[in-house]
């Protein structure tokens, strides 16, 4: 669609711009077939891929362990900190999709520890180790019948210790404290 289909309304200190609705081309006017369900098709396609998920999660756990090893060897630098955070952050986002939702909580706790610590050098490496070992253990033992229950207990303890550290470390930073204590805004499973 031509660019000159754009409309602009000018006000004192702002403009309202209505661009050409170029995506209208994809809105179908035909009624969908009764058995046509694109979401179900996509879920089925994802299911076909799911045989690889455990291997992928294993790779992500190994990546996390390597990032932890780099921190142990070299301490926290911008590079080692980012690598550890990114590995934990990816696990947090992928765990449920890969069929391991019980892992996400421990990964989220590690992300908070790294993100909200005022000085990475003050993060107890023991606490980092406990998170990484917990994530790997939960993955390794996921076939157990009580895996979810154990993961919840482990995660709860990690969160308690992490919160205690962050509340103390940020006691003079009220803005960060507010972030530490605030719940997620976006629904976790929207």
């Amino acid at each position, binding site marked *: 669609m031509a660019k000159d289909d754009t409309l602009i309304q000018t*006000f004192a200190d702002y403009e309202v711009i*209505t661009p050409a609705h170029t*995506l209208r081309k994809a809105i179908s006017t035909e009624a969908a077939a009764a058995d046509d369900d694109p979401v179900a098709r996509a879920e089925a396609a994802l299911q076909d891929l799911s045989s690889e998920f455990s291997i992928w999660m294993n790779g992500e756990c190994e990546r996390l362990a390597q990032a932890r090893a780099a921190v142990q060897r070299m301490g926290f630098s911008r590079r080692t900190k980012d690598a550890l955070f990114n590995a934990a952050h990816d696990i947090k*986002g*992928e765990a449920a999709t890969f069929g391991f939702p019980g892992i996400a909580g421990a990964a989220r706790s590690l992300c908070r520890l790294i993100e909200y610590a005022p000085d990475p050098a003050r993060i107890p490496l023991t606490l980092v180790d406990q998170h990484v070992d917990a994530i790997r253990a939960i993955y390794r033992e996921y076939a157990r019948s009580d895996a979810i229950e154990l993961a919840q207990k482990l995660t709860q303890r990690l969160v308690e210790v992490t919160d205690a550290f962050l509340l103390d470390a940020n006691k003079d930073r009220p803005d960060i404290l507010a972030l530490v204590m605030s719940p997620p805004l976006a629904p976790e499973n929207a």
Partner: protein
Amino acid sequence: MVRIDFNKLRFLVIDDNTHMRRIVRTLLHGFGAREVYEAEDGASGLEAFTHYVPDLIITDWVMPIFNGLELTQMIRQPGANANPYVAIIMLTGHSEKNRVTAARDAGVTEFLAKPISAKSLYQRIVSAVANPRPFIKTRTYFGPDRRRSTVHNYNGPERRKGGKSDVIRPAPLLDKARSIG
């Protein structure tokens, strides 16, 4: 619900995680999309945006070189590229309030917190395609209208000032920017 012909849309998926790119690609193909391009960081994502001219971008936040937020800010520059109005879905593991607000203020069209599901991704795409919001341009913001609904009993400060003026049908923004430059 509105039915979308996904095979008429061109997608660009930007994520440094190869597994997540494959998941999103799988879902998009499942919806019926044919044209799905990929990039693995913000810089190559910007290059792919210019090269492929996608209809929708699905981008991660945390990426090397520059992240999804910076990428969005670079795209939302009127006159700086072929389509500053492109629909951008931020798909991220971040779900904290300050992150959602920052993504909104950078100009993302939709925000989708991981874990991803077929239903949630489908809903965001349908919203972007069927119900595009007008863009707002101020001295500090250029992006989709952040007011998704009218609150009739709103009694806070009115940050937008000025009476309504004429509606104009301007020259293409790119030409306008060039003529000024």
